[in-house]
Every structure is written in structure tokens, then in C-alpha cells.
């Protein structure tokens, strides 16, 4: 008996490795399981959930929040934070509506809008890398400033996009192959984000900077450039979200995106991205966005008041983070 055990021991080592790999996959798989369970519960609770119209709505929700969250995932992977995304959405929304009303060609407006978001993200990055302001403070500052800027240039009023403006509504309202364009954009961002993080040098460097900035520096990584990159990406994706907002609602609101930064951080964290940096990724974030969207949808369908919904959402964030902290402690 004991001899047999000895003979088996190399195999049991293999088995252990296999178990480790499994538990690794379970971390992502567990998240997917949560989503699955939620979906089943939703379908059981409310007949309306599986209605195609409702499902498309959920997808649209996933797309809008998901896109910003992917930008934040890049930032959080470097152990940073970006609180300014909601305000970037507002500035870009107001700007987009104004430019459209000025009669600029739609592609040009889109380009300017995205460039503006990227530039604002870059400003965050510059403050954080060159002046070495902690990311929380820098982006808190720009969050307040940019909200003010959006309110100032719009005079505090929503800017309606004139009905004479050319064909731009397809971005937010159009659909292809039965799914909203916004969902396709989200899918595109997710695929690109995944490839960048997993299969490019920049992506690896993001993880390196987040795991150990000093070792990254000594390994020849240009830490500043990586940080500038992630904040630029975050700004760019906030602008992309903003364009979809404006297109969908035909209005550029200076209050657009209020609280979006918190939602996006929550999604990233629920998706398993560590606030300490270096752990997590795009797939988790996509699932995180879906979990929050399905949850919100269930609560809407059941008729839970928006006030109560906030309580639930907050609790979920705490649960998600504490499970991460507990995982780390082990």
C-alpha cells in the first residue's frame, strides 16, 4: 500500500498541478458561473427578461459601461485609478454636439471627439508621470475641472443636436446582424483590448509596471510611457462611450457620465482586476459589466426602486473586493 503510494507520487504531483490550473481557471470560470446563475434567476423571476427587446437593452447597457471599464482596466492593472472618465464623457458629449451643430462632417467630428478624449487622458498621464501626482488626486482634480468645463462651455444646458445634422445616429441607434452597433463596438474594443494586453509588448509592460514598477524600470521598461499609454487609452474609450451617448440621445449633456467612473471601477474590480495592480484582464471586465447589467435589469424588471438598487450595487462592490482581499491573504 505504502509502496504503491510512493510509486504514484510523481503522478499526484501532476494531479496537484492540474488542480492548481483548474483553480486558476475557476477564478475566471467562477465569475462566468455567477453571470450564468444570475441570468437563469432573471429568466425565472421575470418573463420579460428573455424578451429579445429586453435582452438587446441589456446588451446595450453592457456595451456602454463595458467600453469605459476596459479603459479603466488598463489603468487599474498599473495600480492606478482614473476618476475623470465620467467628466471626460461630459466634455466630449458637449463638444460633439456643438461640432455637429456647426455642420462639420460626421467622420471629422468623431475623430476630433476621440482625439479630445485621448488628449484629456494624456493630461492625466502627464500629471501622474512628470509631476508625480498620485493618480487618485490627479484624476480627482481633472474630474472636477472637466465637469466644470463641460458646464461652462454648454452654459449648463443640454445641447440638442439639430435635426438637420447628417447621418450620425447609426452609432447609437443603428444595428447590424440584429445587434446594436454599440454592441459591435464594444465587442471590437474587447477583442482589441484582449489582444493588446495578452499579445503585445505594451500589454506585458502594463502588467509589469502594475506588479512591480521598480523591477519594471530595472528591466528596461519605460514606465512613464506605459503610464501615459494607459491613461490615454482610458480617455479615448471614455470619448468613444460619449460619442455613442450623444448619437443615441441626440443631445450633448454637460451632466452626462455622472458617476460613471465609480460604475466602471466597480465593473473592473468585480471582473477580478486587482486594485493593487498586475492582476486581471479584459475577459473578467466584460463579464463584470454583464453581471452588473443583468443585475440592474432584474431589479428594474422586478420593480425595485432605483434607491434600493444603489444599496445593492454598493454591497456587491464590497463583496467583490473583500473576496479579492481574502484570496490574496491565503
Amino acid at each position: 500500500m505504502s509502496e504503491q503510494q510512493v510509486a504514484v507520487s510523481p503522478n499526484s504531483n501532476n494531479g496537484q498541478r492540474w488542480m492548481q490550473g483548474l483553480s486558476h481557471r475557476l477564478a475566471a470560470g467562477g465569475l462566468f458561473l455567477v453571470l450564468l446563475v444570475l441570468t437563469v434567476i432573471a429568466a425565472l423571476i421575470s418573463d420579460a427578461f428573455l424578451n429579445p427587446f429586453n435582452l438587446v437593452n441589456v446588451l446595450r447597457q453592457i456595451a456602454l459601461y463595458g467600453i469605459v471599464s476596459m479603459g479603466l482596466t488598463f489603468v487599474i492593472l498599473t495600480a492606478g485609478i482614473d476618476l475623470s472618465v465620467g467628466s471626460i464623457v461630459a466634455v466630449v458629449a458637449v463638444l460633439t454636439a456643438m461640432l455637429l451643430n456647426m455642420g462639420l462632417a460626421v467622420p471629422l467630428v468623431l475623430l476630433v471627439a476621440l482625439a479630445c478624449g485621448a488628449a484629456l487622458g494624456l493630461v492625466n498621464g502627464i500629471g501622474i508621470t512628470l509631476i508625480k501626482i498620485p493618480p487618485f488626486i490627479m484624476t480627482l482634480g481633472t474630474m472636477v475641472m472637466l465637469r466644470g468645463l463641460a458646464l461652462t462651455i454648454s452654459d449648463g444646458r443640454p445641447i440638442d443636436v439639430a435635426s438637420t445634422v447628417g447621418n450620425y445616429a447609426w452609432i447609437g441607434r443603428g444595428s447590424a446582424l440584429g445587434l446594436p452597433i454599440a454592441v459591435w463596438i464594444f465587442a471590437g474594443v474587447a477583442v482589441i483590448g484582449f489582444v493588446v494586453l495578452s499579445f503585445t509588448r505594451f500589454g506585458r509592460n502594463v502588467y509589469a509596471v502594475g506588479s512591480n514598477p521598480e523591477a519594471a524600470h530595472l528591466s528596461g521598461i519605460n514606465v512613464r510611457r506605459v503610464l501615459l499609454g494607459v491613461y490615454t487609452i482610458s480617455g479615448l474609450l471614455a470619448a468613444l462611450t460619449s460619442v455613442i451617448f450623444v448619437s443615441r440621445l441626440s443631445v450633448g449633456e454637460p451632466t452626462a457620465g455622472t458617476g460613471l467612473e465609480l460604475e466602471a471601477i466597480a465593473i473592473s474590480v468585480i471582473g477580478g482586476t486587482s486594485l493593487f495592480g498586475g492582476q486581471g484582464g479584459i475577459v473578467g471586465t466584460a463579464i463584470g459589466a454583464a453581471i452588473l447589467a443583468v443585475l440592474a435589469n432584474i431589479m428594474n424588471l422586478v420593480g425595485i426602486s432605483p434607491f434600493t438598487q444603489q444599496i445593492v450595487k454598493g454591497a456587491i462592490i464590497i463583496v467583490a473586493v473583500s473576496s479579492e482581499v481574502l484570496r490574496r491573504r491565503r
Partner: protein
Amino acid sequence: MDATNKSAVPALRMTNISKRFPGVIALDDVSLELAEGEVLALVGENGAGKSTLMKILSGAYRADSGRLELFGKPVPFTSPLLMMRMGVAIIYQELLLAKDLSVAENIFLGRLPKNRWGLTDWQRINADAASLIERLGFDLDPRAKVSSLSVAQRQVVEIAKALSQNARILVLDEPSAVLGDAELAKLFEIIGRLSAEGVGFIYISHRLEEVFTISERTLVMRDGKVVGTAPTASLTRNDLVRMMVGRELSDIYPTRNPKTGPLVLEIEGLHNEALSDISVKVHSGEIVGICGMAGAGRSELLRAICGADPSTAARASINGANALFPSPGKSLAGGVGLLPEDRRKQGLFVSQDVAFNVSIANLGSIVRNGLLSRGAERKVVTDFVSRLRIKTPGISEKAANLSGGNQQKCVLAKLLNAECSLLLVDEPTRGVDIGAKREIYQVLADLADKEGIGIVMVSSELPEIIGMCDRVYVLRGGRQTGEFTRSDLTEENIMHAATA
């Protein structure tokens, strides 16, 4: 063991302790006894089970089976707080002090006495702290901030803190890894003083010299078992090494076969904040040692060469480049890599896997069709794992799960993968057990002798410098105070230049 052992009840008795982790038997029927006032050295290679055993003693882990008795009383349940109250204190290598608080505050942290107004009684705290420190034979201002203290002084604070909690058993986990020789002597003085007062010590160390200096009895562990225990005076260095590694190590330093080639590094008149007027030459295939006391500028010299710290030089020629490197990135691109002093903080990405750690400094080499190729990465990394004999279950194992020596090999592999032809290695064997040390020496010697790589090695262990180096520079206070070739490399020569 011995029936004639101290008649009194031992301070600590751990009997038949076993502890399993999934797939590993960390401790297998381990017993340990410590008499009052005894200094017991606990030695063994990394992974031998020393820290697991101490974690059980501290209450951080619970044993699967076995008994624990303190001062004759069985302790059925343990928790860190309980063990601390019962007089067990563990002082870890990485000191756990609040840097921005004062010495006295740290000593009484969480137990700050209050005066009759309900306010913190600073007078009493400072007075009590001062008397504790005095008891240890030191002179420290209790009001000084911990951040202003040297590592040795911080250790004194830790010990004072333990004493203030009436510790009767003190475990010192590799205290010397961060101490210079003079500081170590002071620590030994404290140990002597307290053991005379009846405080028992368990002293964990990799450095056998210390074991012989300080301990009365030695307990050797290997692979989760006790190999043996004996009065230290009855053991020889060879006995200990054989017990630890399970084989004879006549000489842990490899036979060098230096074939030095052309100059790969020549710097004259190097200056920066920590260094003045340093001149260094390194040939290919040569191992050049940098010696000096802590703070002499050894690490700073390596950092200056690889562009990590801004510096100026009258003349510099490094691997064909005719100027100092402006950044570590440029240095790596120029074939000069730094293996930093603090592996976990500066060298390794502990939360990432082995493959990530090895490939990160030269991702360009695994790009196929514009994207990183996992296949190419696996090939490169697997090659390094076998070439440097990195012991890991696989290349996707987290670096944090590797032993210190294998972590160090990962950092080395990272530099070699970046095609470095000049390596700057800073304390390459710090915190690494003897078996792994020997392997690292062999790897470094092979790199120099077989591949013609130039190596600059900083070390505070003189035997290591003498055993490995072809030539040595000695620094003192940021200046160069000596240069010795292999023929006149002796501890006296080096120490004389380092301290005179």
C-alpha cells in the same frame, strides 16, 4: 535527547508536530525543545520547514498533529495573540515597524499607557522605552522616528518591543541578512545579555559562522524532518553542511578557469551623489568583486554603471558605447544588466509566473507576426529553466512560489535572455540557502569562463568574494581605497582597505 539535560521544565517543547499542505508534507513528526536561557540555532536549506515550524509556534499556522507545551503547560489552541501573551515573540527578517512613528510609540504600539486625564502618557512611554533600550545595552532616543534609524537599531526596537510584552522565547528569523559585521556583534551582545536573564532564543540563519558564534545547540532540518540536534561545540562546519544538504560539500566555490578577453567596461572618474572619482575596468570573462562596508557605495556603483542613478564620468567605454547609459533600458539594450540587491522589491515580479519574469526584458525576441507568441516564449523560457537548473513545477508557476535561490535564477535568466554580456550582480546569494548558493556560484563561474561574460559582483560576504573573484575593488565612503588581484586576495587586505 540527553537525559542529563536541564532538570527544569523546558521553556518550549514541541512534540511530533506534523503539517501538510495540499500535496506537500511541510513538517513530518518534528520535535523541538528549548530550555530557559538557551540559544538554539535552527538551520536548514530553504524549504526545509524552518519557517513553517516557527509559524506554528507563533500561532499563524495550526499543526495537523503534535503537541505544544510552554513552560510545562500544554497549549491546545494557538493564535498569534495568544502566543504573544504567553511570551513567544518572533522577529522577522523584514522588520514590521511603523516607520513614521517614534521608537517609544513602536515599542508600545497598541498598548500606549494613559495618564489620569485619559490622554496618552508620553512621559511614561518615553521613560519606559528608554529603560528597555538601556537594558539591551543601547543608547537610542525614544523620541526618534524609526525611519531615521539604521537597520540594526530597528532590530533593537523590535527586540525591545518583544521584551515589553514579557517575551520569554524570542525567535530571530535570519537577523543577519540585513546586518553588517559590527551591527551583528551588537546583536550577539544583546542575545548574550538576555539569555543570561533566562530568555530562550531560536536563531534561524543561513550563515554557519554565526551559528558557531552564538548558539549552544543546533537543530538541523531537511525536507520537513529533523536531521539531528547536537551541542554546537561538538559540530564542525562540514558536519553541519552535510546534515543540511545531505551530501558532502568539500568546497562550495567552483573551480574557476578564467580566460579573460578584451576590456568590456572601462570607466574613469565616475562621480555622483554617493560616489567620487571611481575608476573601474572589467574584461570579458572576468569576475570583478566590489567590497566595502554597508554604505560604502557598492550598490550605488552598480546602479551608476547601468544608468539607474544619474552620474558623470571623465571617460566611459561600456560594451562599445562611449558614454554612461542614461537609463536601465538603454543599459540593457547595450548588453549590460543589473541583478539588483533586493530580489523581491527590485528584481522579481512575484505575482507573475516564471515565463513572464524571464521574458519581460526582451519581449522583442518572442514576437512573431507582430504579436507575442506563447510558443516562442515557452521555448525560450524552457531553455533557460534547464540551462540554469531552475527548479519549478512549470513555467507558468507563480514566481512567489519558488524558493529564494530559484527566484534569483529567474532574475538572472531575465538578464541573460536580454542578451547581456556584462552582468552587474548585487548580493547574488543574499537570503539563499547553501545548496542554492553553490548553484548560483557555478552558474556565474560558467557564464564567465565558458561564455566570456564579464561580471561585476557586489557582496558583503568576504569568503564569497575571495572564492569567486579574479580581481577586487574596495570602496570606502564612496571612494576607491584598494584594488587586489587574485594572488593578494585575503580577508585582511580587503578589511584593511575597507575600514582603515
